[in-house]
């Protein structure tokens, strides 16, 4: 009986100590030539046509891994997603949505225009979703996509 209580206490203790501390930050960046080199810096001088990179960084400062991380980023208002620009630092699955609700691979996204069904253009994507299977303790990862200001 005492032994059982001891295991229970240890288990509760471990659960409270061994947890995942997850945070996510987002940055909007633009390319700038600095000392003859192109670098991505905080977006400040932005006019229609400027390409912006949205960089989302996920950090796990806890002691336990996080799983099934789903990062959803609606394409900001006034921005148009740039085809093929969504990436992630490690392994991930990327899908897109035309309505912010249903996410699919690009070849499965269609729109109906003047009664005819056609493949959706990247500029019509309304949201991007990344799925990362696992982010270990004390690990960090990032996902990104580029968009152009309308």
């Amino acid at each position, binding site marked *: 009986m005492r032994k059982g209580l001891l295991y229970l206490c240890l288990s509760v203790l471990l659960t409270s100590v061994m947890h*995942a501390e*997850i945070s996510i930050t987002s940055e909007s960046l633009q390319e700038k030539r600095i000392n003859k080199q192109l670098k991505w810096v905080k977006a400040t001088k932005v006019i229609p046509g400027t390409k*912006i990179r949205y960089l989302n960084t996920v950090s796990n400062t806890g002691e336990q891994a996080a799983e099934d991380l789903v990062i959803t*980023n609606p394409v*900001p208002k*006034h921005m148009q997603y740039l085809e093929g620009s969504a990436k992630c630092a490690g392994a991930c699955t990327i899908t897109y949505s035309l309505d912010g609700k249903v996410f699919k691979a690009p070849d499965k996204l269609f729109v109906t225009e003047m009664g005819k069904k056609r493949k959706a253009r990247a500029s019509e994507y309304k949201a991007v979703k990344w799925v990362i299977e696992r982010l270990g303790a004390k690990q960090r990862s990032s996902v990104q996509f580029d968009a152009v200001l309308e």
Partner: protein
Amino acid sequence: MLMLLGAGGLYAAGTAAGTQVTNEVTLSYTVGGISQTDIVGNDDDGFLVDNKVDFTVANNDGDQIAVTPGSTDQVTNWTLENTGNDAQYFTLAASNLTGGETVYSDADTADTSTPYTITYSTDGGSTYGAYSGAFELAVGASVLIKVAADIPGSITDGDVMNIQLEATATDSGGTAITATIGADNEDSVDIVLAEGAEVSAEGNTEFDGQFSAWGGYIAQSAALAATKGSCVIWDPVKESSNPKRIPGAVVRYAIQVANTGSQDATDVNVTDVLNANLTYGTTTPAPTAVARIVTESCDCTNPGATNGDSISESSGTVTAAFATVTASTTECAYFDVTIN
């Protein structure tokens, strides 16, 4: 100051200056198979869209405007459009191009008189008001512009007078605006000069807050040249067989007027004061005198039929009145005189 509204729509030229663009991302995850509360991240208010100053000027005439030497208020037509993402003030300036500058494949050879009179229309050309300084154009709006010039009387047929209309982006007081220099601040709307340069000469460059277009005028007038010749038609000895210029002989004058210009010449009067030893016309037994204007090159001994224009004489002065000498046409005035 009237703000001109265009039909282009608010976003025709891109996202409006001053718009805040923010990003928000959501993360869901599990730990140990248990779903955790979603986390939302953002990019700290994102960025503020800067003022992209962009605009175009175009000449609408498609070719030089044909003008007559000495004519006034000859109009060229232009369009100024604000293609930037904010309302913008503009000033206008028209000027002669330097010699040799080519517009619509015609090189500049002459200048119009200056200054020009500039008017512009905010209602698609129904009414035009005088341009008197900086005016504001809404995003996507455009104005039709007329530049009127006087044409010097000294220019000749084919002279090309090319001109430039330049628009400058200004503040409300008409002072040219400049791009924001130095580091940008995401919390302020900076000015970015983004206009192109339609023409590369005359100091026109892109991103300087000015945009120019070229148009012009081409002079179209008559170009007349007169030449005078003569032949002997009859003399009292040999009559019509190899006649000589002896007293009593009939001499025929043929005055050829050629119009090599591009316009018809009207009411062309050619006068000829006869030598004191000549008498206008003929007397019997000499042949009946010829006095006619013919639409042909001169053929002294074989004049064609009259075209109806008149020749008259008064006090020894002969006047040939060419009603119209058509462009690229030659006419001839014939009249006979008798050697005293």
